[in-house]
C-alpha cells in the first residue's frame, strides 16, 4: 500500500473567463493532517469542491487510494472514501441530530425497499446497528445529549461538530474540513483541534482548509498554499511560514 492517499495532478478549473485553479498538483499522505491555506479568493474552496465531486475539473485528474477518483459524481466520491464538511454549515435542518448521522450511514448499509417493507430480521438488525453507530459518533463529537433535537435547534458549535460526525459516518479514508473553526471562539477552537487530532489518531487522514493560520500551523503535518489559483508552496508548516512567496501573498510585496 502506497503511503500516498490522494494525488491531484495538474487540476485546472475556470468559471467563465476566470481561471480559478491552474495546474494545481498536490499529494496527501496517509495518516497526516494536510492544510490548505491561501488568501481569500485563492481557489481553496474550488479545489475542495473538485476533490469532493461537486465540480468537475476542466483539466487534470485525481488519484485516490490508488484508483482514479470519479470526479463529478458526489455519491461515488463518497463511496471511494472522501467525506467533507462545509464552510457554511449544511445539515439536514429538519431532521434530528441522530438522523443526520444516520443518513451518513446510508452508503455503508444495504437494506433496500423490500427489506424496508417486510421489516425482516436482517433489516431490523441493520437499523439497530445504524442507530447504534450513529449514537457512538455523536458521543465521539460530544453531541449525543442532543441526539433527538432537530439539527436547526443545535448551537453553532454543536452544528459544526454534528457535521463532522455525519461526515465520519460515511467511513471516509479522507475527511475534508472546509474552515471548521470559522466563527468559533477560542474554547471551541481548542476543542475542535483536539477532535481533529483524535480523528487523525483513529486512522482517518484529514484535509483542512482554514483561515486561522495559527490553527493550521499548529495542527497540520504539511501545508500547501494557494494564491490566485496556483500552488505557491507545499511543505511542513515551519518551512512554509518562512517561504518568501507565502509571506508576499499574505502580506503584500512591501514587506517581503
Amino acid at each position, binding site marked *: 500500500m502506497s503511503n500516498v492517499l490522494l494525488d491531484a495532478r495538474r487540476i485546472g478549473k475556470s468559471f467563465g473567463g476566470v481561471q480559478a485553479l491552474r495546474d494545481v498538483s498536490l499529494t496527501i499522505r496517509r495518516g497526516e493532517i494536510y492544510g490548505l491555506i491561501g488568501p481569500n479568493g485563492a481557489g481553496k474552496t474550488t479545489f475542495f469542491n473538485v476533490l469532493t465531486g461537486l465540480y468537475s475539473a476542466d483539466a487534470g485528474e485525481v488519484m485516490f487510494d490508488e484508483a482514479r477518483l470519479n470526479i463529478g459524481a458526489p455519491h461515488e466520491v463518497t463511496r471511494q472514501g472522501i467525506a467533507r464538511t462545509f464552510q457554511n454549515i449544511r445539515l439536514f435542518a429538519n*431532521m434530528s441530530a441522530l*438522523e443526520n448521522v444516520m443518513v451518513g450511514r*446510508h452508503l455503508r448499509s444495504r437494506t433496500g425497499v423490500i427489506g424496508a417493507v417486510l421489516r425482516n430480521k436482517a433489516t431490523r438488525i441493520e437499523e439497530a446497528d445504524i442507530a447504534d453507530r450513529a449514537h457512538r459518533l455523536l458521543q465521539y463529537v460530544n453531541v449525543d445529549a442532543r441526539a433527538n433535537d432537530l439539527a436547526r435547534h443545535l448551537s453553532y458549535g454543536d*452544528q459544526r461538530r454534528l457535521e463532522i460526525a*455525519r461526515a465520519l459516518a460515511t467511513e471516509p479514508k479522507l475527511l475534508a474540513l472546509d474552515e471548521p473553526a470559522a466563527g468559533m471562539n477560542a474554547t471551541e477552537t481548542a476543542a475542535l483541534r483536539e477532535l481533529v487530532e483524535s480523528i487523525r489518531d483513529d486512522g482517518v487522514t484529514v484535509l483542512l482548509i482554514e483561515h486561522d493560520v495559527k490553527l493550521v500551523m499548529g495542527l497540520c503535518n504539511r501545508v500547501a498554499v494557494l494564491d490566485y489559483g496556483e500552488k505557491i508552496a507545499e511543505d511542513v508548516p515551519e518551512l512554509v511560514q518562512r517561504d518568501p512567496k507565502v509571506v508576499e501573498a499574505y502580506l503584500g510585496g512591501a514587506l517581503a
Partner: protein
Amino acid sequence: MDTFIQQIINGLVLGSIYALVALGYTMVYGILGLINFAHGEVVMVGALTALSIVKVLSGSGLPGPVVALLGLMGAVPVCMALGFTIERVAYRPLRNAPRLAPLITAIGVSIVLQQLMMLGWGSTYLSFPQLFSAQPHSLMGASINDLQIMIICVAGAMMVGLVLLMQKTRIGRAMRATAENPAMASLMGVNVNRIISFTFVIGSALAAVAGLMVSANYSIAHYSMGFMLGLKAFTAAVLGGIGNLAGAMLGGVLLGLIESLGSGYISDLTGGVLGSNYRDVFAFFVLILVLVLRPSGLMGERVSERA
C-alpha cells in the same frame, strides 16, 4: 342529523382517495419542486387496468374482495412502471431546464396518456362491476357499505405504512434528506436519481390503489377521469401545504369533507337555486381561498430553508 353523519362518511371516503393521490403530488414536489400534472392520469391508468382485470375475473365465481385484490395486483405494478417511465423519459432530461419546461412536459404526458388509453379502452364511460355487497350497515342513523369501509381502512393503512417508511427506514431517511438538500444527500452517498425514481414509483403505487377505489366507489371508469381527480388531489396537497406528507393527508380528508358537506347542504343553503352538481365548485373555491389567505397551506412551512 343523519344527513350530516352521512355526508361525513361520504366525505371521509372521498377524502381518503384524495389523500392517496395528493401524497403522490406532494412527494414529488417535496423532492423535485415539480408539479407532476400527469399524476392524475396515473390514477386513471390504474383504474382502467384494474377494471379490465376485474371484468375478466368477475364471472369466474371468485369472491368480490379477492377479485378486487387481484385487480390491484395488476394495476399497482403497471402504475409503478408507468411512474418510473414518466420520470425517466419526461422529467429527468429536463432536470436542469427552466421550471416551466417540465411543467409543460407534464401536461404533454398527461394528454398522451389520455389519448393512448382512449385508443385502448374507448371513449365511453365503462361500468365497474360491483365487487362488494351493496347491503348497507347502519351507523349512527346513516349508512355505510362494505366498499366504503374498505376504502377508508385500506387508505388509512397505506398512509400509516408510508409514514413508517419515511420515518423509520433507511430509504425513507434518504428521501427526506434528498427533499431537504439533494446535493448534500448526494455527498452523503445517497444516489439521488434512484431516490427520485423510487419517489415516483411509490406515488404511482398509491395512485393505482386510489384509481381502483374511485372507480369502484362510483362504479364507473373513463379515460378522462384522471383530470378532475388529479386537480382536486392537487388542491388537497396545496390545502395541506405542498411538500408536506401529513399536510397532503389532512388536506385530502378535509377537501373530501368540505365537498361532501357542501354538496349535501348547498341546496338548502341557497333555497334550491344551486344543486349538488355544484360540488366541484367547492374544491376550487377552497383552492382560491387557501392561495389568498395562506399560500403555504395549513401545515406548510416557510418556502425554503437550507441549513
